[in-house]
């Protein structure tokens, strides 16, 4: 057995990690024990990509099967990383339609979590651009699932956290782009109402997201910088600029676990103050930025999860339905600001409808906050969860490491439908993760 954790490095649990090199070996690995789940690049924060007994590492499956430049349609193995797709097909004029906040995720993981990006409000999530999926089910069948064929299994697999089977391959569409640059507009919002108004006004933008200063209180509560973005055309680029910018591998790396007090009330407040002021100075006119810093600001620092110290951290990402969201968000932000230990990665953005049975998004506002694992943080997050549930909201499973069954069941009314589809694909529940044991499976 090996100790395994997600990106948040909490919890750390035992699971046997295998790295099969053929689909036959995947099938054999799943058949041999009860309790396997696939793992892509390990960027799920909590326990989603850790098998109850056995974890099937999929990053060795990194081949592109075919690509049609006329349509942008691509068939690929599930372990291909989005970073690889961007680096390879970007220069040929194609990007993924949807990218999350890190490009170091696998296609299989992106489907399983039905990840969303800064364009979810208008263009939907990752699954919307997936046409079909090759799935190895828990009962030992290899099936192709799509909107037309095995459609229940398809919609359960999109956002199904890997619980419908091992995603082996997928066919998806890439977005034709003229350049790898984004025309960005920064808007500073002095409080939560202004931030929400700016996000509402940004509904017509392709990309919109707000960085929110969760250390600000009182009059400044919810002050934010809103980043709107559009794909830039060739004639918007600076003279001599390459059509496609070079994505540097992370230069800086966090070499060790920093002491957990590195991020404290004072350093977070100081950082946020500085960040807000610098952003506010850039507010106003449009400027063209490389897609890499626009979409993946933290990817330039390798192993940034280590700044939270050895005990790891929790990301709490909820979505609150649009009606009544303002007061709930204000309540949450006020409680968070009082604690003072949420760090600079606080993000507010609007979401639209989810596509999969268990997809996280619903029309409303999503708020993501990071907290180091210490003190009474688990109790505090339980309190926040009560506010989320009362407002009809829910938590993102790809980030979750600690929500209760009650919170989960209240937030995902389609759970019984998902369970029925899962049962039809895998009556013996051979596919099980630590997350499914915590939230789905009978005890």
């Amino acid at each position: 057995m090996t100790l395994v954790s997600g990106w948040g490095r909490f919890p750390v649990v035992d699971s046997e990690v295998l790295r099969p090199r053929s689909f036959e070996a995947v099938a054999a690995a799943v058949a041999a024990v009860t309790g396997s789940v696939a793992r892509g690049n390990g960027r799920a924060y909590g326990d989603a990509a850790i098998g109850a007994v056995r974890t099937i590492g999929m990053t060795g499956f990194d081949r592109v099967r075919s690509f049609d430049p006329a349509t942008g349609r691509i068939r690929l193995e599930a372990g291909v990383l989005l970073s690889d797709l961007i680096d390879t097909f970007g220069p040929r004029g194609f990007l993924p339609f949807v990218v999350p906040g890190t490009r170091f995720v696998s296609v299989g993981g992106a489907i399983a979590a039905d990840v969303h990006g800064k364009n979810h409000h208008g263009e939907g999530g990752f699954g919307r651009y997936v046409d079909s999926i090759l799935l190895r089910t828990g009962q030992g069948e290899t099936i192709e699932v799509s909107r037309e064929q095995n459609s229940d299994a398809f919609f359960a697999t999109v956002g199904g956290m890997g619980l419908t089977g091992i995603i082996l391959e997928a066919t998806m569409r890439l977005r034709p782009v003229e350049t790898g640059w984004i025309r960005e507009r920064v808007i500073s919002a002095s409080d939560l109402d202004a931030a929400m108004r700016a996000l509402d006004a940004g509904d017509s933008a392709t990309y919109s997201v707000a960085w929110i200063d969760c250390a600000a209180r009182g009059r400044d509560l919810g002050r934010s910088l809103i980043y709107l973005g559009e794909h830039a055309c060739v004639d918007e680029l600076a003279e001599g600029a390459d059509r496609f910018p070079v994505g540097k591998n992370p230069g800086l790396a966090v070499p060790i676990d920093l002491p957990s007090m590195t991020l404290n009330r004072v350093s977070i407040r100081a950082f946020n103050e500085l960040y807000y002021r610098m952003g506010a100075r850039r507010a106003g006119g449009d400027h063209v930025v490389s897609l890499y810093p626009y979409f993946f600001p933290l990817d330039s620092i390798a192993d940034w999860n280590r700044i939270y110290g050895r005990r790891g951290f929790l990301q709490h990402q909820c979505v609150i339905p649009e009606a009544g969201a303002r007061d709930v968000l204000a309540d949450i932000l006020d409680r968070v600001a009082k604690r003072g230990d949420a760090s600079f990665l606080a993000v507010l953005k609007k979401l639209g409808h989810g596509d999969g049975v268990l997809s996280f998004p619903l029309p409303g506002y999503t708020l993501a906050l990071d907290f180091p694992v210490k003190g009474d943080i688990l109790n505090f997050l339980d309190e926040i969860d009560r506010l989320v549930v009362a407002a009809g909201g829910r938590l993102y499973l790809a980030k979750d490491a600690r929500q209760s069954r009650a919170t989960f069941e209240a937030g995902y009314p389609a759970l019984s439908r998902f369970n029925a589809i899962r049962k039809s694909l895998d009556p013996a529940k051979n596919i099980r993760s630590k997350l499914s044991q915590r939230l789905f499976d009978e005890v």
Partner: protein
Amino acid sequence: MTSRKTVLVLGGSSDIGRAAARAFAKAGYNIGLAGRDAAALEPDAADLRARYNIEASTWTFDVLDTASFDGFVAGLPALPDVVVSIIGLLGVQPNAESDLAHATTIMRSNYEGPSLILGLFAEKFLGRGNGTIVGVSSVAGDRGRASNYVYGSAKAGFSAFLSGLRARASRGGVHVVTVKPGFVRTKMTEGMKLIGPLTVDAPVVGDAILNAVEKKTDVVYVSGKWRLVMLIIKTLPEPVFKKLKF
């Protein structure tokens, strides 16, 4: 696309082979992948075509079947511009100490076969007046160590062969590169305890091979740290060295 250069990768199914093929394809080369089972290489060839819009072909090549080498080279539709041999077999040292057949396979896979096939290509390249030969050897060949001297001695022989070939071929317009990767996270090293700061991923080696070919480097330690580590290991006096267990 006849103007494209071509590279033939011997050992195309290995992780370093796949990485090297991608690096060259990305740089615009057409790729030939050679391995024991050409059909098994087809998915990798398809991957290269889909990604980089180049031509990729697959070839059957068995490094232990030296009698087939002349026919293999003659059977290629055209002589490639670059030949890269990634072929190697780590084997199991404790077994190789008593099992002569296993030791022989390690020696032949790491020294005899790669040297003979690259030597053969060198003759053809010299006849043509240009070409680049790349042999992936190992830091293990820099000094025989208790824990892997069967493998290490074969790599030492291969490194010496490449060194001599380079000296001779350079006068005829043919360049020879020796690559010593150090620890690489691959199928071959899976499960081994590797030292993090001295370990790289296969794509780093692939890029280093391309870089060495384009810059005409002679000997490449993929991570500069290894040059220092091996300098120290090579300098240790034998009475001290023989007491070390690694």
